[in-house]
């Protein structure tokens, strides 16, 4: 046993894992007691042990903060988001269960109506229309008076 104590795990490749097992708490009681005794006398192993402890503590604290349930929930949401069908697929899916037969004659009728029936343009404003009529009437009277004036002035009147 003395010889085991004297043999530093860092100097013996096959024993190096013993130190890591000890640090991880995976070593059985008798071997662990021997490793503790060795650590008291071996500064290199002690330093490695302390460093390993710090790493383990850091990992444990990170583990503690990691919320697996929340991670799983977010993952499921993300997957659901990626698998959600686009608007085109949703429209296609909506129309799958509908029979379009009744709409065919109606649509044909509407198409023919659209071709044959030209909708009237925007209804002109009534007052604008009246103004236009008034102006047309005024211009007609003006034209008659012009013609009459010309016929009279050029002596082109009937005898």
């Amino acid at each position, binding site marked *: 046993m003395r010889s085991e104590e004297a043999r530093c795990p860092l100097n013996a490749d096959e024993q190096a894992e013993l130190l890591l097992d000890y640090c991880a708490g995976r070593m059985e009681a008798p071997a662990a007691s021997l490793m503790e005794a060795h650590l008291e006398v071996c500064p290199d192993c002690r330093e490695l042990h302390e460093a390993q402890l710090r790493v383990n503590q850091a990992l444990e604290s990170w583990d503690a903060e990691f919320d697996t349930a929340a991670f799983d929930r977010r993952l499921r949401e993300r997957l659901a988001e990626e698998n959600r069908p686009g608007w085109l697929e949703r429209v296609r899916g909506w129309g799958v269960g509908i029979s379009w*037969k*009744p709409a*065919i*004659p*109606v649509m*044909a*009728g*509407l198409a*023919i*109506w659209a071709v*044959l*029936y*030209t*909708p*009237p343009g925007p209804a002109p404003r009534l007052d604008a229309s009246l*103004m236009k009529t*008034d*102006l047309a*009437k*005024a*211009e*007609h*009277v*003006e034209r*008659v*008076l*012009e*013609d*009459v*004036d*010309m*016929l*009279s*002035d*050029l*002596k*082109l*009147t*009937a*005898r």
Partner: protein
Amino acid sequence: MRRWASVTVLSLLLAFTAAGQGPGGGPPKGGGPGGGPGGGGPNPVNSIGKMGEEERRRTIESLPPERRKQAEDRMGKLDRMSPEERERLERSYAAFQRLPAKMQEQARQMYRRLNELPNDRHSAVREEFGHLRAQSSSERTQLLKSKDFRSRYNKKEQAILTDYVTLLEAPLR
């Protein structure tokens, strides 16, 4: 399947019916009161002569001020005519309206060109109008062909006098 075919045919018939009742399918136009051009309505000269002052004002109020003033002056001239003069004018106007549209427009343009002449030339051409009115058809033709005519009037004046002869020969008087 036959049922759908029937529904399709019915829909098509409805569509044709609806299209037929649209703007293009209505009754033919021009059948309303007032008739079309040359419909034998009242003589416009007579109608204007019979208009009251207020009606005349309302009729020409949409014209620009300068043209309105000119129309008012012409109405005044019409009012100052004797009934016989006005009747002759009504008959001449009716005859003028029966001339081809192109000839009517030619007369109007001739009258505008006449009024654009300088005063001295305007007077000279008007004086020649008087001579032409007193001449027979053959005398007018000879005058238009004469060297004297071509030497006394420039091209523009010759065109005015030629158009005037055309109007004198037209069935206006």
